[in-house]
C-alpha cells in the first residue's frame, strides 16, 4: 500500500464543528496545502480553504498547523513525519467555514491608516540606504498571522483598542518613508494603540516574511509616541521594556 499522511482538519461553521480525519497519499515535497487540495479534489469538494499563489506570495492560506500559526503553502508535510497533522482555522478571527475565517476587521483598520503624503512630487530622489529602512515592511503579504498570534487580539480581543502588528508595519512604512509629510503619531498614541503592545515579539516569530515587526517597526514607533507624549518617563519605559535606545534623527532624513 502506498504511504500516507494523516490529517485532522477542522470542519464546521459559525455554529460549531470538529476535527475530521483524512488520509492522503504521500508525495515528495508535499506541503499542507497540497494535502488539503487532495482532500478537496477527491474526498470533500466543499472543504473551504483560501489560497491563491501556492508560493508564499499572497498570504491567503494562513491557518494553524498543530497549533502553530503558519502558511499552509509553505509548511511541509514531512516536517511532521509519523504525526497526525492537525489543521485548524486562525483562532483570533470569527469562523466562516472550515479553515476560512472572517478577516474583514483588518480591512476596516486598513482604512484608518492615512496614506503616504509626499512632500515633493515624484520622481523622488531617494538613496537605496533610505529605501532599505522601509522596504522590509513592503514585504508584508497581509497573511494576518501576526494578528492571529498577538495576545492583545487573540486573548484579550482588544480589536477596538489596538490595530495589531500588521498595521504597525503599515504605519511604519509611511512614517519612515523619507518623503512623507504626514503625522501619524497622534493616531499611534490613540486609535492605533501602539502602547497596547508589550513587546513580546510573538508576532515577529510567526511572520513568514521574516519582517522584524517588533524591533524595526513597533519599538521605533513607540519611541515616537514616547517622545511626543511621555518624554519624562521615556527612560524608565526603556528600562522596563528592555528596548534598545535608537536615535530618532535617522528617521527624519
Amino acid at each position, binding site marked *: 500500500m502506498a504511504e500516507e499522511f494523516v490529517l485532522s482538519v477542522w470542519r464546521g461553521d459559525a455554529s460549531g464543528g470538529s476535527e475530521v480525519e483524512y488520509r492522503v497519499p504521500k*508525495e515528495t515535497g508535499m506541503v499542507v496545502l497540497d494535502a488539503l487540495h487532495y482532500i*478537496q479534489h477527491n474526498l470533500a469538494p466543499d472543504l*473551504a480553504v483560501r489560497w491563491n499563489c501556492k508560493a508564499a506570495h499572497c498570504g491567503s492560506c494562513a491557518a494553524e498547523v498543530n497549533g502553530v500559526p503558519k502558511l499552509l503553502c509553505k509548511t511541509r508535510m514531512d516536517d511532521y513525519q509519523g504525526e497526525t497533522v492537525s489543521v485548524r482555522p486562525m483562532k483570533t478571527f470569527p469562523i466562516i467555514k472550515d479553515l476560512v475565517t472572517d478577516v474583514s476587521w483588518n480591512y476596516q483598520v486598513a482604512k484608518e491608516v492615512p496614506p503616504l503624503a509626499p512632500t515633493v512630487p515624484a520622481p523622488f530622489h531617494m538613496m537605496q540606504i533610505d529605501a532599505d529602512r522601509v522596504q522590509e515592511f513592503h514585504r508584508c503579504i*497581509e497573511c494576518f498571522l501576526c494578528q492571529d498570534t498577538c495576545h492583545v487580539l487573540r486573548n484579550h480581543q482588544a480589536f477596538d483598542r489596538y490595530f495589531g502588528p500588521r498595521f504597525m508595519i503599515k504605519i511604519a512604512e509611511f512614517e519612515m518613508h523619507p518623503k512623507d509629510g504626514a503625522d501619524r503619531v497622534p493616531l499611534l498614541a490613540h486609535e492605533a494603540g501602539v502602547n497596547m503592545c508589550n513587546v513580546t515579539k510573538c508576532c515577529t516569530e510567526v511572520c513568514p516574511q521574516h519582517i522584524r515587526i517588533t524591533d524595526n517597526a513597533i519599538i521605533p514607533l513607540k519611541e515616537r509616541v514616547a517622545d511626543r507624549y511621555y518624554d519624562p518617563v521615556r527612560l524608565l519605559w526603556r528600562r522596563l521594556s528592555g528596548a534598545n535606545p535608537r536615535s530618532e534623527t535617522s528617521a527624519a532624513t
Partner: protein
Amino acid sequence: MAQETYETLEYDIIVIGAGGSGLRAAVAAAEGSGLKVAVISKSLLGKAHTVMAEGGVAASFGNLDAPDGWETHFYDTMRSGHFINNYRMVEIFAKEAPDRVLELEAWGAVFDRTPEGRIMQRPFGAHTFRRLCHIGDHTGLELLRTMQYKAIHSGIDVYQEVTMTKLLVSHGRVAGAFGYFRATGRFVLFRARAVVLATGGWGKVYKVTSNSWESTGDGAAMAFRAGADLMDMEMVQFHPTGMVWPPGVRGILVTEGVRGEGGLLFNSEGERFMQRYDPERMELSSRDVVARSIFKEVQAGRGTPHGGAWLDITHKGPEYIKRKLPGMYEQFLTLADLDITKERFEVAPTCHYTMGGLRVEAETCATNIPGLFAAGEVACGLHGANRLGGNSLSDLLVFGRRAGMGAREYVANGVTLADIDEAEIGQEMERVLAPFGREGGVNPYHIHERLQEVMTNHAGIMRSGEILEQGLQKVLELQEEARRMSIQGSRTYNPGWHAVFDVENMLLLSEAIIRSALERKESRGAHWRTDYPDELPEWQTINFVERYEGGSIRVRTEPVKEMPEHLAKLFTYGKAPGLVQQSEKKEG
C-alpha cells in the same frame, strides 16, 4: 425551485476584478467624478494574481541606459509581438508607462534605487535596454498593495469574495452583472451604467501553470457569452522557467529576473544551449524562443533528470542573490530543499500568460458591447503573439486607467441604468443552483484535471493540425460530460460549487483557443505548429476574432491595423531606435 431571492445594488460603474488593472480602473473611474464606483473580486482584496508578479514593471525611463525612450519600448514590444499587436495600443502604452510608474511612487511604492537615487531598472528578455523597475523580486506585491491602499482611500466600495457568474446585457448595452457572496451563497445583482472587466487570464486551463486558481477566464467567458469579441486566442505564453521538482511545486514561476540578474541555462551535457537558438541574446532572448529551446533540448534527450534545463546563478554570490532575488532564494529553500546560492536547479516551461482576450479600442478600452470595457490580461491587442516580461504590469496601469476613464466618459454622456430581465435572472439562479440537485454526477475537479491534460497535450507549446483536431474533439466531449457536474454540501463558502463555473468558463475558452489555433496555419510567437514551422508574411496582416452565436463559436479574420509612416519608420534602421541614436551620437 423554492422562491430564490437576491439583493440588488446600484452603481454608476462596477469594476469586476481587483488585480492591478481593476484597482487602477476603479481609481480612475472614481477620481473627481463623484460617481458611485464598486470593485468586485472573487478573492480577498490584495490577493489577486497580480500579487505574484516578480520581475518588474517595464517603463522606458532610461535611468541606467539614457538612450532608452518610448520609441525603443514600442519597437521591442511590436517585435516581440511579431507585429500582430494593435500598434496604437503599443504606442499609447510605451508613451504612458513611465508616468504610471511614477504615480505608484507617489502613492507609496518604494522601488530599488540606482546609485544616483533614481528608480533602479533591470535587464529582461528582449528589452533592448535595462527597463524593468522593481523591488527585489516582489514587484507585483508592491504594485498591488500600493493600488489597494490607494483604492480604499478613493471612496470606492469594495466587495470581496463575491463571484460574478453572468454579465447582463439588455437591448444591446451592458446592464450589470449577477453573482453571489461566497461566504453565504446569497445571490446579488449589481446594476451599473458601465462595467469594466479586469478579471485576468485563463492560465489554469493548462496542467503545468504559474497561475493562481483565479485564472479561469471568467470575465472573458462571461463577456463572450454576452456577445463580446475575443481575439488572438491561439496566443498562450509558456514561460521558459517554471519549477520542476518536487511534484507539488511543478509550474511555480522562477522569475525571469534570475536570468536578468545573470543566470545561465545549461542542458544535461553542460552546454549553454541558447547558443544554438539565439546566439545574440542568449538567455535573454524572448520567452517564446527560450521556452521552445528548452522544450527542444528535452526532446533531443538532453534534459535534466525531471525533464528540464539547468538554471545556474551561483556565480553571482550569496549576498547578491539574497538581495536581488530574496523570494526565489526562500522559495527554493523551503519548497525544494535547495540553496540557489550554492546549487543550480531544474526549470521547464510553464503556462504563464494569455495574450488573447477581449478585443478593445486602444484609447478607451471599449469592447464591442456598449458600456462594457476591459483592461489587463482579459483584454487583447497590446502583446500580439508574445508578451514581453514586465509589459503586463505596465499594461495594467496604463490601460486600467484608460478603461476607468473610458467608462467614466461613457457614463458622463448621460446613459441610464439598463433594464433588468427578471426571467433571465430567474434562469441564472436556477442554473447556478442546479449542481446541488444533480445526484451522482461528475466531480468538477476531475473534469478540470482532464481538461488540463487535454490542453497540455493538444494545444500546448507544440501544436499541429492533427493534434489540435483531436484536442477539439476531446474538449467538446468534456463539455458534454460537464453538463452533469454535481456537488455536495451547503452554499456557505463552497469551493466545489465555485469550481463548477470555473470549469464551464475554461471549457468554453479552451474551445476558443483550439479553434483559432487551427486557423493560424503558420508559426508565430508563442504559436508553434510543427506542420507549418515557418512564420509567413501573409499571416502577419490578420488577427483571428471569435464570436459566440447561437451556442457555437464563429471565427473570422480582421486586418491588423497598419502603422502610420512615422512609426513604421522605426523598423527600417535594422536596429532599435535607441541604438541608432546612440551610434549617431558616437559618430557625430
